[in-house]
């Protein structure tokens, strides 16, 4: 049996090598990086952007790395896929969903020679890093823009699931909006899916019919934005630059960019400098960026750029006190700022959001 495996291993290595480098001489065998995706590569959202990141890593590091990807892996199948990646030579594995966090915590100690990186996880191990982006910083800018653009003073928010990420995004959008106009209101529809184009579009229709004229989306498909375009209201893109889907409606998109991080971490493994880390990258980290502002006046654009740059520079912080919960109780007083753990742990809406917490 070992013979079969070894010959096969050689076969794959030869295959990978042939693809990676024309010459025979190679200082170091290429590092194989594994990626485990929660959805299909073609979801045009979360998983697609990790795939884009993988390709960016290959571009940056050239023939020093190869990459292997497994898509639509359900959590119960995770252990096997991770093991199989390790057995076929992956020495660095990105597990790109929170659903994989516990499974990764379980598998990592059994594969001490493989480095793991979990997206959006909450703790580290000697061979497990966690990484995420501070998408909420972009949400704050969206809130500012929405307040400038809205005539009905009502933002529509298409939400996926009530997880902390989405809750604090809703809070930040409103903080941004209130910084322009304290009268701004929000309506929220939960579609119970990260990706269901037609239902997302239906949710956008419902929100627009109820008077919302700027649509924020926390789901992956361009459907809400397309609908905003059709109905003559504004919207923001998610995950990738969605300008082309809504030439008249698109204001900006929050564009995920994992590639540089992936390249950096793969290089660290190659050079033997990899250490477990907890990275929560903001606008300044390049882990995500805002797509060029469109359909905005020069003044609006200038303001949005100013806010964006201030957040990136750290001079404006979306979570400065005072912060009050919906019921009026105080989270932090003026002069304080939410810690990272407090940001992550938000399971309440701020005062002024008149939507019930699910």
């Amino acid at each position, binding site marked *: 049996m070992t013979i079969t495996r070894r010959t*096969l291993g050689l076969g*794959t290595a030869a295959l990978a090598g042939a693809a990676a480098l024309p010459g025979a001489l190679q200082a170091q065998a290429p590092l194989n990086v594994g990626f485990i995706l929660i959805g299909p590569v073609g979801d045009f959202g979360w998983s697609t952007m990790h795939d884009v990141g993988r390709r960016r890593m290959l571009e940056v590091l050239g023939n020093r790395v190869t990459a292997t990807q497994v898509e639509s892996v359900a959590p119960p199948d995770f252990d096997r*896929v991770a093991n199989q990646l390790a057995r076929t030579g992956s020495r660095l594995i990105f597990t790109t969903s929170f659903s994989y966090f516990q499974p990764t915590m379980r598998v990592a100690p059994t594969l001490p020679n493989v480095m793991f990186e979990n997206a959006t996880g909450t703790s580290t191990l000697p061979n497990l890093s966690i990484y995420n982006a501070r998408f909420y910083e972009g949400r704050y800018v969206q809130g500012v823009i929405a307040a400038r653009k809205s005539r009905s003073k009502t933002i529509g928010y298409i939400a996926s699931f009530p997880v902390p990420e989405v809750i604090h995004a809703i809070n930040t959008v409103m903080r941004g909006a209130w910084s322009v106009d304290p009268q701004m209101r929000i309506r929220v529809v939960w579609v119970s899916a990260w990706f269901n184009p037609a239902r997302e579009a239906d949710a956008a229709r419902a929100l627009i019919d109820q008077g919302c004229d700027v649509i924020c989306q926390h789901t992956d498909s361009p459907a809400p934005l397309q609908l905003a375009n059709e109905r003559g209201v504004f919207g923001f893109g998610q995950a990738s630059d969605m300008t082309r889907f809504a030439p008249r409606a698109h204001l900006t998109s929050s564009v995920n960019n994992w590639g540089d991080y992936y390249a950096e971490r793969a290089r660290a493994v190659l050079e033997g400098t990899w250490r477990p880390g907890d990275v929560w990258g903001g606008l300044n980290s390049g882990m995500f960026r805002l797509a060029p502002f469109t359909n905005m006046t020069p003044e609006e654009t200038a303001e949005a750029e100013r806010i964006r740059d201030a957040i990136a520079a750290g001079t404006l912080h979306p979570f400065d006190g005072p912060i009050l919960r919906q019921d009026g109780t105080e989270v932090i007083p003026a002069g304080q700022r939410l810690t990272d753990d407090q940001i992550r742990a938000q399971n309440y809406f701020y005062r002024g959001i008149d939507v019930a917490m699910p």
Partner: protein
Amino acid sequence: MRLVLEQRGETGLALRMASPLLAVALALASAAVMFAALGADPLVALHAYFLLPLSDSWGLQEVAVKATPLVLISVGLAFCYRAGVWNIGAEGQFLVGALAGAWLAIATHGAAQGPWLLPAMLAAGALGGSAFALIPALLRTRFGASEILTSLMLVYVAELLLDWLVRGPWRDPAGFNMPQTVTFSPAATLPLLAEGGRLNLGTPIALLVVIVAAFVATRTLKGFEIRLLGEAPRAARFAGVDAKRLTWGVFALSGALAGLAGILEVSGTLRQLQPGLSPGYGFTAIIVAFLGRLNPVGCLVAGILLAVTFIGGENAQIMLRLPLDATRVIQGLLLFYVLACDTLLLYRVRLLRSVPA
């Protein structure tokens, strides 16, 4: 020209063996063409797809782990379909079984847990799945509402129930508000059976179920009544078979097995509840049941075959960088071939020049 099927009198052992082999060979040939079209070496691909999962102890254990829920659920479904009862909501019963069993683990987490816990969890899982399956049974026997519709719709309800529980009442208080329950303690986790793999107690349980089910199906009066009800409902009525009670019975049984599969999966591999805990086992098991010709031993074989293709699909992605969709196409083709070759067992296929029927 047209296809004509002629019934065979008897099917020899050689043919029984040849049919599935022919199906696999045809699938291999089609797969090879597709692999080549996608730029992969067909031989390496076929090896990764069909042989690698079976090539060592670790791989075999993984096949067993993957096949266990499929086999358990499909054995229950086989009884339903034999009786002409169309339970297609096993996915929901799987989830509710997982919920019911996990509830015990969560409720006692951090408190006194003992060796009683695991058996209790398995019993709760079976009961939960069974109770959930009795809803369509009740709607069928009491109101005449089609179980095809009700059992399918209840799958979505079960998914949303799971979603609500893990985001709300059962959420791990120390889990940063993420949608997951606490990780089960060792007392609530199925023991592993072998070194260097994930084989757990679930697999022997599934094998035991197959043996008992095979006995019940072929050697008992109940098994006969179930077949009679499905094949000749009128005759069954004359023979004094209580159709209502039998409908309840097969629903309860298949729900129990699906629920048992659910809690085995959760306490054996995942060790916590979270959304998306089933990759569609309940639906795949329907295919398994029919591939296995609604016979428990057949379900065992078909479950293993399907498990191999799932794992082979992962291997193809890992070793050949083939997209998942390509392996789905191959899976679909394989199933088509298996079904088509089944026909060869029952019929002789002839091509005839057009003759009036």
